[in-house]
């Protein structure tokens, strides 16, 4: 199967065969104790959540645990979630990233390592590979293109922070740059991303 089309089909699949789901409605149903709504949300978002968590943890078995924890947390907290706050997937992916980083930090504490020891493994955008970049849908293509347009130092700062969970101080240590420089790179990079990706907020609800 063509990975791209397969992935697209995976993203598009819904329980009812409908091309789109009312995610706010799903969250309301989950809050009301409807396990089928949880299953539907899982069907729609398990794949992107898994991809993010694997990127953070670099461990597929642990990533599966985190995916389950993430959706379980959605089940438990759905009643307190304000659907007017924004896209549901923002909430979902934020939970997934937090849980993945928690687990990563715990693992590295056990091993006596610091997060910066894996900095080199976090070069998500280091090499352009059009075939791989095209996998996973248009949104991914757009985000990767926007990241690749950033100057290398800004891009590196953002990927170390987002996928590596490094603080600004840790990034400064890792890159051997002053803290102020890291803050500036982060601010400029984010400013450009807002310009490039702002429209995705409007199409994501």
């Amino acid at each position: 199967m063509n990975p791209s089309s397969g992935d697209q089909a995976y993203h598009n699949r819904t329980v009812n065969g409908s091309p789109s789901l009312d995610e706010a409605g799903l969250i309301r149903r989950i809050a009301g104790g409807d396990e089928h709504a949880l299953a539907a949300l899982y069907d729609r978002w398990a794949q992107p959540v898994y991809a993010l968590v694997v990127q953070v943890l670099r461990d597929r078995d642990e990533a599966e645990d985190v995916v389950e924890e993430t959706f379980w947390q959605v089940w438990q907290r759905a009643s307190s979630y304000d659907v007017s706050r924004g896209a549901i997937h923002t909430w979902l992916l934020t939970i997934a990233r937090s849980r993945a980083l928690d687990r990563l930090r715990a693992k590295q504490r056990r091993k006596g390592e610091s997060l910066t020891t894996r900095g080199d493994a976090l070069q998500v955008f280091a090499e352009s590979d059009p075939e791989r970049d095209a996998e996973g849908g248009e949104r991914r293509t757009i985000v990767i293109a926007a990241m690749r347009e950033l100057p290398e130092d800004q891009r590196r700062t953002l990927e170390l922070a987002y996928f590596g969970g490094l603080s600004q101080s840790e990034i400064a240590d890792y890159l051997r740059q002053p803290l102020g420089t890291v803050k500036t790179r982060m601010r400029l990079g984010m400013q450009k991303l807002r310009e490039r990706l702002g429209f995705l907020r409007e199409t994501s609800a």
Partner: protein
Amino acid sequence: MSDERDIPRDAAGVPSPDVPMTPPDNTMDDDFASYDLDGYVLGALADDEAAQVRAAAQGNSRLAEEIERRHEIITQLAFAAPVHHINRGRSAGIRSRLVSRAVSSREGHVPVSRRTADLLRPLLRRDPSPRDTTARGGTRDEARSGATTSTAASTTTSTTTSFTAPLDSTSALQLRAVRRNYRLALGVLAAAATVVIAWQQSRIAGAGNAVRSVFATREQATARRLDSLLVASAHKDSVIASFAGPNMKVIDLINYSSQSPLARMFWEQKTAQWTMYAYHMRQPKPGKTFQVWLVTKTAPAPISAGTFTPNPDGSYVMHAKYALDANALVKVAVSEEPTGGVPAPTGPIIIAGAER
């Protein structure tokens, strides 16, 4: 993704970040310049800096909205993560566990419904479906058939055309007749060839359909088997989830003389399910049976939870359903009683125990 249909595209229809999308809105950057909001949404600030931003956002809805806005932007980076495909079988397992945990948390141990099994099926269905394959096979057959007919027709035309060369005028009538006959013969031959080819194709297509039908039947049988395994697995997950849940109480029933545990009772309060695992039980005397009793603070006399006769190896698993207040249970006991049981205990207590 379906929600990407509104993504701006360039002239060729390719989604492009070069197309002007949203006008840059940097006013907020100036308004909140004193806070490192980008560091905050990335979770990259030192604790004291992050606490400052949190405190400021609590009393400032515009700042809170701006943080939310930036949060949504940075979350887009998640989509840039390299695509790692989750194993479908394991994903189905995660889904199944989530559903059973959700059911357990909502109302305790409840068997997984058929609808849940139906929900699981799409994850495991192989694409393309047999029906799709058949449809495409048919289309291919049709295309092949069309192509052959077209080739035959083209051959006919080509051959006919080669007979339109100049001819001797004296034999014109005869030649015209020959040509007419020849054309007729060719037409008949072409028609016969078409019929033979169509017949052969129909045989091939028939054989193909038979093979597809066998595979489709096998696939349906496999899907049914998979469904039943998933339902069984979800059921076990549900039992495990309820055993591990906070509402489970465990009571060990021990023999008074040896003090060694001979039975363990699991009481799922939410669903009022009682499950007792008994081991090393002797057989009751002739005309007798063992009867289980719940001694409570609320009832004036012990409540019968059922009778049982152990298996030859002395083990027994007993299930009962009885609703009881969480704090009402004092003791669980097993006594030896006349066959059929009695309304109140009369015989000797064999094992008994209180909640741990």
